[in-house]
């Protein structure tokens, strides 16, 4: 008990000592996570930088294989080595580089300071242990509570995430619960040690829309109550628009755009973001047109194979704006509008066209 207090004090002290960046709780800089496979080198994350402010919800959006999940796993150092390896960059949590931590020091971070929820609640819960057991495990480990105290805390957490009859459900096994309930359990577990950062990797993708709405509302409510900063990883621009404050767009292992949410949707400066937005069927727009009349705007072609990336800008082969320069040279990440970063040679043309 005394020890935890000391730890908390220490944490506050270090927080003060790095005053200039104290607003940023997590800073990823130039992160390179590569996989060395039999078929060749895969640059799953290739020079990604972004930061997360305290109490903020940052959306990370991109299609499958763009490296959004690998970035999150890299933060927790959960990349299987071999074949994966973080080859370059830094991940600063409260000013300290997590990549310098020993494995045992990392265990003090995982589930305690930074925790994660996954897409598939069934495969990330242990089927042979009661959910109470699984939630209290982390509490006993990190907070040093007794089994009994941890069990009571587990019940409290289940109540917090609005699971009815928590004192009964705590004794149940994962298979006895629905998908939405399991995801609530995952959230309860992730938040049980009051983490400062929550990494949510497609937390609602496996759920029905009505349940998705419940879970997103719950996550934001928890954020209000506990002050957790959230990185919300998803492919669903609708979820991003409704929950995130700032957005990072990723494509083929690189960050291509970053902006505040209204700015990004209002004036996308990267053709990939623009393409994604245009290719989504819109509920509010579709209803006004007879079917067949409005074709969705397509992004031509497909995501390049990570084994065999094109020269220059990775999006150039699919890009309607691409010029020779794009095929030759990767564009630098620049501030195109106030607070709006994009890596594209032709953002001016996009901005010129308007949204």
């Amino acid at each position, binding site marked *: 008990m005394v020890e935890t207090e000391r730890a908390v004090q220490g944490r506050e002290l270090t927080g003060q000592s790095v005053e200039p960046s104290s607003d940023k709780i997590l800073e990823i800089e130039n992160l390179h996570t590569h996989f060395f496979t039999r078929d060749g080198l895969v640059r799953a994350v290739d020079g990604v930088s972004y930061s997360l402010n305290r109490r903020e919800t940052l959306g990370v959006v991109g299609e499958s294989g763009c490296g959004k999940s690998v970035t999150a796993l890299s933060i927790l150092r959960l990349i299987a080595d071999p074949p994966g390896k973080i080859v370059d960059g830094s991940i600063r949590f409260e000013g300290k580089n997590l990549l310098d931590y020993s494995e045992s020091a990392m265990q003090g971070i995982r589930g305690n300071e930074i925790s994660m929820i996954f897409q598939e609640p069934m495969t990330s819960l242990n089927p042979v242990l009661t959910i109470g057991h699984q939630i209290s495990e982390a509490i006993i480990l990190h907070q040093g509570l007794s089994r009994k105290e941890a069990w009571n805390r587990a019940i409290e957490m289940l109540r917090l995430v609005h699971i009815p009859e928590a004192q009964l459900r705590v004794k149940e096994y994962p298979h006895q619960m*629905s998908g939405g309930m399991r995801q609530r359990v995952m959230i309860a577990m992730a938040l049980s040690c009051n983490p400062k950062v929550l990494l949510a990797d497609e937390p609602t993708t496996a759920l029905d*829309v009505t349940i998705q709405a419940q879970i997103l509302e719950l996550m934001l409510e928890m954020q209000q109550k506990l002050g957790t900063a959230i990185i919300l990883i998803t492919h669903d621009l609708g979820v*991003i628009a409704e929950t995130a404050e700032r957005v990072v767009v990723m494509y083929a292992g690189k960050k291509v755009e970053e902006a505040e949410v209204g700015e990004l949707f209002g004036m996308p400066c990267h053709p990939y973001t623009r393409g994604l937005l245009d290719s989504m*069927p819109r509920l*509010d727009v*579709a*209803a006004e047109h007879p079917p*067949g009349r409005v074709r969705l705007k397509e992004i031509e072609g497909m995501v390049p194979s990570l084994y065999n990336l094109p020269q220059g800008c990775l999006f150039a082969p699919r890009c309607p704006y691409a010029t020779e320069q794009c095929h030759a040279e990767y564009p630098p990440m620049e501030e195109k509008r106030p607070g709006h970063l994009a890596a594209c040679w032709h953002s001016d043309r996009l901005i010129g066209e308007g949204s």
Partner: protein
Amino acid sequence: MMEQAVQTQQSEARHPEAEPPLLEVIQLKKHFPIRKGILSRTVGFVYAVDGVDFHINQGETLGLVGESGCGKSTAGKTILKLIEPTAGQIKVRGKDITRLSKSDMRPYRREMQIIFQDPYSSLNPRMSAGGIVGEPLTIHKIASGKEKQDRVAALFGRVGLRPEHMAKYPHEFSGGQRQRIGIARALALNPNLIIGDEPVSALDVSIQAQVINLLIDLQEEYKLSYLFIAHDLAVVEHISHRIAVMYLGKIVELTDKQTLFTMPLHPYTEALLSAMPIPDPKVKRGKRVILTGDVPSPINPPSGCHFHTRCPYVMNRCKTEVPELREIVPGHWVSCHLHGDTPTWPLAKPAGA
């Protein structure tokens, strides 16, 4: 004004005297028995599809939406008689096919094809792409040899694959390309009706748009009818002419898509629409309905209206009395006790209830 428009649209679509619709489904039911113990005695039923009625006209897309477990996929498979229906009728151009034998079904199978959700598990990994697409032609003894090769090549071209892809195997293709192979296979027999069981749900957004556009183009070209089963309302709205909303084995609302979006008359539809995230941070929603609780089990569905356990407008009557699917406005079918002979809009409980 609007009612009139809906009415003319409806009568235009139906050709009442001329000919029966391409597909008509009447009170279709599929109950799966639950067996237990060493004697495998039936101890109960899963009421997966529990009395579903709709029709689809030539060249029309009917969207079927609902959450997982509502019976929408079972409905699709039952219509193709991939699963034998428990009760009800399936009519193709007026002819009842519900009780046909396997061999009598064969000509109808040519007319009705299916595209599955998962492009990874619905293609035989040991057959080449060309073999997969050509197989229906062999089974139905339509073409063989060089003629078959030519037809398959033409199909590949039509769905946006290259002829040299024919010799490749499914694992060599991306998800979107595999779904194109599935579409080519469905098209091989020149069907009239294609049932799409979540055909774009497993695809990335940018690829999803390509496949949706392809489906729309093919519909216009071949006058295809689609039964488009999906959980994503935005996709369904985009592709469908009319939409049926399912909840726990029953259709709760069925109307054309404009009406469904602007004037949903079933509380469940209203909740579904309001739960769909809109990819535009500027859009401020009017009222947001977030349903509490989960979809109840279809093994033991709630009494009365199946939706009453989650409905924000629940009345006493809903707990005991099953609401019927009624045509409250011409062309707009709803099963809800909130509406009398005229619709109550916006949805609200009647005073005193």
